[in-house]
């Protein structure tokens, strides 16, 4: 929302604060300002000039004009290309050396003639969009500033910070704030006497009082549609609105001033003399002012005449009843619409207008007639001969007035965190036009003004904000709360995740973070079914349409990307897998760890490195062969088990998924691991008697599992066996090509004595016998 400081000064006449300081005050007390923009600063140097003589310049469209630019500049010769440059015309003169819209006007030779300055169009001056010819002034003294036009400073306020303030969508609302902040007087631009006391010349039939609590209108005749005076056009330009014609400009002016959107119908194009406010028929068609045709639904509100919709209530007017140059009678609508209804309509039709933006903030129904009064006065000023037919047309279903809010002073002090006098509280609230009565000592009853009562202010907490912001939050001293301390609940699972991260980093893995989104194509590539994923209804793009059920697509992406810069690397991610649940329940979000080792020249070692990481997290965990999944190397995948539970997988990525490199992956269900917990630690007394050890080298087939032989040895060794440790394996001569030898160290001992060499030998013999029973021999 753009606020013209000239406009604000009209409403707070003694305002003398420079724009930048004003902006700071508004930011600190009311709403966030984004900046100050200078509007047409050159108007300070542009003056009125009278064209004295013109002379066509042969071979061009230009004329050589002699002008009177007043006592300072005197007579000047300028070359002008505008078709309306004619003797007697009062227009705008830009002296040489003045910059307009970033371009400096220079003494120049044009068509062979010395041109000293420039006669300017409205568009060149930035005061309207007229580029047909130079400015035509109705009055003015040569050499004097352009009447009614002066440079302006425009303060831009962030719209988001005005969402809760319907009244600040017009200059008057902001002027009221400024008056309250500065203590200056506010001037109300509305004179209710502008509306004649007479019966209405039109009828209104509101058929949905929920969606339209109030509809007011005035009928005007003897209207002459033409461009607005320049001062009015310039005001609209400064506020960021486009000047169109006097009638439309007045509706926009009132909207920008009072936050009350108006709409003017060409009365000659309305059928009958009754405005009907009703819900649209399902599928009803509506041709809007913007040239679009909309198909409406039953929750949309239309303004209709006897033949059909003439406006989409509170959003946009209709094409057929729009104001044109031939319009002579108008019906000027000033209505109030329910915010929620407007918001729904405007978002369903994807049609946001200056009107809908204001109505969806919940405008004040009291304001409709004020808007009409202001418009009537302006129209009378700029359209000579215009007449109001009859008086006010108005149908209103007022909501019950809001209850006064009880406000204990002691509560204000407690919540604010600083002391404040009752008189001060009262003065602040009254400066914002709240009604304040003392109900009993220390307790106010506060009445909310209508423009703050639609939604903005309903409870005492809302009043606290009014007091706090005007008194200034910088006056509140920070203070430590004197509350009993409670030992906080400890989020052990989150701490556990941080520990896992540290462990991964210590093992050389760098942490990555990937999006929660994947594409259908990506899902299919890994053999996942897209249907088993949660789907985004409004994705940014098709490749971000599904919620990941595995961290693998993201990690795979990281692998491919980083192979461009590195030949080998380790990375990991901790993130949520998102698994849909039935019955409308929220999905199951399962935190997983996925770690990867990728290398261009890598062999199988990476898988064992990952197994080391797994062992760091789950001491003694086991990897057992498991059927490979589509994205896994079919001969290199295993399931990880720990404490009886299956918690994850270690595998090499299928070569189809990564070219010229190998990637080993470790996937771990962190929730299951966390829930399993760490077994309690228990002290075992240190062994008092020495142990003995012997090595066995077992010859076995190539695919006999190391863990299986280890288990066999332990079983065979029996009661004195303390540990079986795998040492190394060997392939090659003299073994057969389909055989390997695996060497283990068996440690034996007894708790109460040192085993004799015969006893150790007996263990060894038992072990060998057990292996032999399975067809395994020693090397």
């Amino acid at each position, binding site marked *: 929302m753009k606020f013209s400081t000239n406009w604000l000064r009209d409403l707070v006449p003694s305002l003398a604060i420079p724009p930048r300081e004003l902006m700071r005050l508004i930011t600190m007390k009311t709403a966030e300002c984004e900046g100050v923009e200078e509007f047409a600063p050159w108007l300070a140097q542009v003056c009125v000039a009278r064209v004295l003589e013109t002379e066509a310049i042969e071979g061009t469209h230009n004329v050589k004009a002699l002008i009177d630019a007043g006592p300072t500049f005197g007579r000047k010769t300028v070359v002008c290309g505008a078709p309306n440059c004619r003797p007697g015309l009062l227009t705008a003169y830009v002296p040489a050396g003045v910059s307009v819209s970033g371009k400096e006007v220079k003494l120049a030779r044009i068509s062979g003639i010395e041109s000293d300055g420039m006669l300017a169009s409205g568009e060149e001056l930035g005061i309207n969009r007229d580029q047909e010819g130079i400015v035509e002034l109705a009055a003015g003294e040569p050499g004097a500033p352009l009447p009614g036009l002066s440079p302006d400073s425009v303060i831009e306020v962030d719209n988001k910070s005005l969402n809760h303030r319907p009244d600040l969508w017009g200059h008057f609302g902001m002027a009221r704030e400024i008056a309250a902040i500065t203590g200056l007087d506010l001037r109300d631009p509305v004179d209710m006497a502008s509306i004649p006391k007479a019966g209405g010349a039109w009828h209104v039939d509101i058929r949905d009082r929920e969606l339209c609590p109030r509809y007011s209108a005035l009928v005007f005749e003897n209207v002459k549609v033409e461009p607005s005076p320049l001062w009015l056009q310039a005001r609209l330009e400064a506020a960021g609105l486009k000047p169109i014609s006097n009638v439309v400009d007045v509706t926009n002016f009132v909207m920008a001033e009072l936050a009350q959107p108006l709409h003017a119908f060409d009365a000659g194009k309305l059928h009958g003399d009754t405005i009907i406010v009703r819900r649209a028929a399902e599928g009803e068609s509506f041709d809007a002012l913007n040239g679009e045709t909309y198909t409406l639904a039953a929750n949309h509100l239309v303004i209709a005449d006897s033949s059909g919709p003439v406006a989409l209530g509170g959003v946009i007017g209709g094409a057929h009843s729009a104001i044109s140059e031939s319009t002579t009678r108008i019906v000027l609508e000033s209505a109030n619409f329910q915010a929620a209804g407007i918001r729904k309509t405007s978002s369903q039709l994807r049609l946001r207008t200056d009107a809908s933006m204001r109505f969806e903030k919940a405008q004040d129904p009291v304001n409709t007639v004020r808007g009409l009064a202001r418009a009537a006065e302006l129209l009378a000023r700029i359209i000579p001969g215009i007449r109001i037919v009859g008086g006010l047309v108005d149908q209103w279903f007022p909501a019950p007035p809001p209850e006064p809010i009880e406000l204990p002073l002691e509560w204000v002090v407690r919540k604010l965190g600083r002391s404040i006098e009752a008189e001060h509280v009262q003065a602040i609230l009254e400066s914002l036009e709240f009604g304040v009565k003392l109900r009993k000592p220390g307790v106010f009853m506060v009445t909310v003004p209508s423009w703050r009562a639609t939604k903005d202010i309903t409870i005492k*907490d809302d009043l606290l904000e009014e007091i706090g912001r005007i008194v200034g939050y910088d006056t509140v001293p920070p203070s430590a709360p004197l509350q009993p301390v409670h030992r906080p609940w400890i989020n052990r699972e989150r701490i556990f995740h941080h520990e896992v991260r540290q462990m991964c980093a210590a093992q050389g893995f760098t942490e990555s973070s990937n999006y929660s989104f994947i594409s259908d194509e990506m899902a299919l590539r890994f053999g996942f079914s897209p249907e088993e994923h949660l789907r985004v209804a409004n994705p940014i793009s098709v490749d971000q349409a599904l919620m990941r059920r595995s961290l693998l697509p993201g990690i795979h992406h990281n692998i491919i990307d980083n192979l461009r810069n590195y030949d080998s690397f380790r990375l990991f991610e901790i993130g949520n897998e998102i698994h849909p649940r039935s019955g409308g329940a929220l999905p199951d979000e399962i935190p997983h760890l996925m770690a990867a080792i990728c290398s261009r020249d890598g062999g199988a070692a990476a898988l064992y490195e990952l197994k080391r990481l797994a062992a760091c997290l789950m001491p003694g965990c086991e990897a057992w062969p498991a059927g490979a999944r589509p994205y896994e190397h079919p001969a290199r995948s295993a399931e990880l088990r720990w404490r009886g539970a299956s918690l994850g997988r270690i595998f090499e990525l299928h070569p189809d998924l990564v070219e010229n490199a190998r990637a080993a992956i470790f996937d771990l269900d962190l929730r299951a691991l966390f829930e399993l917990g760490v077994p309690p630690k228990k002290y075992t007394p240190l062994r008092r008697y020495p142990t003995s050890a012997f090595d066995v080298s077992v010859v076995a087939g190539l695919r006999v599992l190391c863990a299986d032989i280890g288990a066999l040895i332990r079983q065979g060794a029996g009661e004195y066996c303390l540990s079986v440790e795998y040492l190394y394996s060997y392939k090659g001569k003299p073994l057969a090509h389909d055989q390997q030898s695996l060497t283990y160290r068996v440690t034996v001992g007894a708790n109460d004595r040192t085993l004799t060499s015969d006893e150790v030998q007996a263990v060894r013999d038992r072990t060998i016998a057990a292996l032999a029973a399975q067809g395994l021999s020693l090397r």
Partner: protein
Amino acid sequence: MIETTLSDLEARAVSLLGQAPDAAALESARVEFLGRKGSLASISKEMAKLTPAERAAAGKRLNAIKERLESLYEQRKAAFARAALDARLAAEWLDLTIPPPGVLPGSLHPLSQIQKELEDLFTSMGFAVVDGPEVETEWHNFDALNIPSTHPARDAQDTFWLTDGHVLRTHTSPVQVRAMEKFGAPLRIIAPGRVFRNEEVDASHEHTFYQLEGMMVDRDVSIGHMLYFMRTLLAAIFHREVTVRLRPGFFPFVEPGFELDIQCLICGGSGCAVCKQSGWVELLPCGLVHPNVLRSGGIDPDEWNGFAFGLGLTRLVMMRYGIDDIRHLQSGDLRFLSQF
């Protein structure tokens, strides 16, 4: 006669022991003179033939010689040992500029690091660290936070909707409600986590980023208390006192609502490109919890109240490290990640 023999022997022994070129020669010299069958031992035997007076004088002389030779031997033996050790040590020279074998530690994502840091800080101030789901119900993400479907504030949060009607949480604020449901009052929590906005990605916009929600509910919590916590928080984050200002800000789930700005750390408040010449940087939306939100969490607003705030972790990480492109954070690019 014996005196002459002893003197000759002494001269010869001193010469051999003193000039032995290596430890082996020294040792054989020792055996020759000082050994059990060495020269001194033989002379000692021969001395039995002398008169007691002669024997006493010769014995004294012999002992002196023996002591001298032993001392010389020990001295030279130690010298040889030191030389041998010196030679060994010199031969064991190592180039310690060679990098260590094996992999070096990796690094943690800057967002994880800052989360951990803030979790520790708040835990020390009595706050619990709470998690909430990334996929939320519409009620928790909006309605419970005083943002009904008709509220224009919903426009400000470009929401990802799922086909099952749930939303990807647009902020960490729904955790306020979940925490109230779980713990009741009094309550001090923070909730760091991932949030989503349906926004095109460019150097300064991401659809996936991180926030930290904070909330304290107790009796008679004031704006002054909130300011105290915010200042403590910011001093801990930036490792120095920061100048703050509080101004009105509109968020439906707080009343009153604030924007907390910090004085620009780059220019110190005089104005620069980072603060858009204003001298201030918007950092921390906050406010007193709206009574409707307390009610949503099952807490009686007449008895309890509190403050809440939201901290943009992604923004904070970018400020701390001077990261100029938000997209790096979710890129998985090790050239970026390995810097932290």
